């Protein structure tokens, strides 16, 4: 499970790709032309970002698209990364509390 999360974080480290994911969360699906119209980058650049998101398992072609290809988030794709963030943050709450206890009672 951890092996899949690294590429997800790398994919989301880029602000353009975060924009794509936010668009998909809001609108459900999008296309290369739609993204190229909304972003200050070429269709080629959009396609590269979509390829990275696809390789990370975050997006897929939306079913039922014929003439113009649409993309959507892969169901459950953000789950593992989200879980890692929550689990890791909670673990650190715990550790920091113990660090505080250990240092203050010296």
């Amino acid at each position, binding site marked *: 499970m951890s092996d899949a999360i*690294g590429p997800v974080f790398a994919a989301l*480290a880029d602000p353009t790709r975060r924009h794509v994911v936010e668009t998909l969360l809001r609108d459900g699906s999008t296309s290369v032309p739609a993204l190229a119209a909304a972003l200050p980058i070429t269709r080629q650049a959009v396609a590269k970002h979509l390829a990275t998101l696809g390789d990370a398992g975050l997006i897929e072609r939306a079913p039922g698209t014929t003439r113009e290809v649409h993309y959507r988030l892969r169901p459950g794709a953000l789950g593992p990364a989200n879980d890692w963030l929550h689990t890791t*943050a909670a673990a650190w709450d715990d550790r*920091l509390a113990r*660090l*505080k206890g*250990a*240092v203050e009672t010296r």
Partner: protein
Amino acid sequence: MPAQREIEIEASPEEVWDALSTEEGRERWLDEPERTIHVESEDPPHRLVWWWWTGDEPASRVEFLVVAAPAGARVLVTETLPTFPLATLAARFALVAA
């Protein structure tokens, strides 16, 4: 997208540093013997970076920032999960250790 948490501690940054930067110090609060810790960089008493992992899992990077605060010290910890493969990481450590 890192995981980030912080806490205020009623002690000096140096005292906090002591608990972070040495094995003896960490034993006072960190009870995870299954994890291997490799310290990447130290800027006492303010910034410490280590990598750690369990078994075959990918290593994650932990960065501590310790600053003076009215109550004594404020600690900010950030953990990230990078993407390069473990083999590259191991090679990098070999270079550092050499």
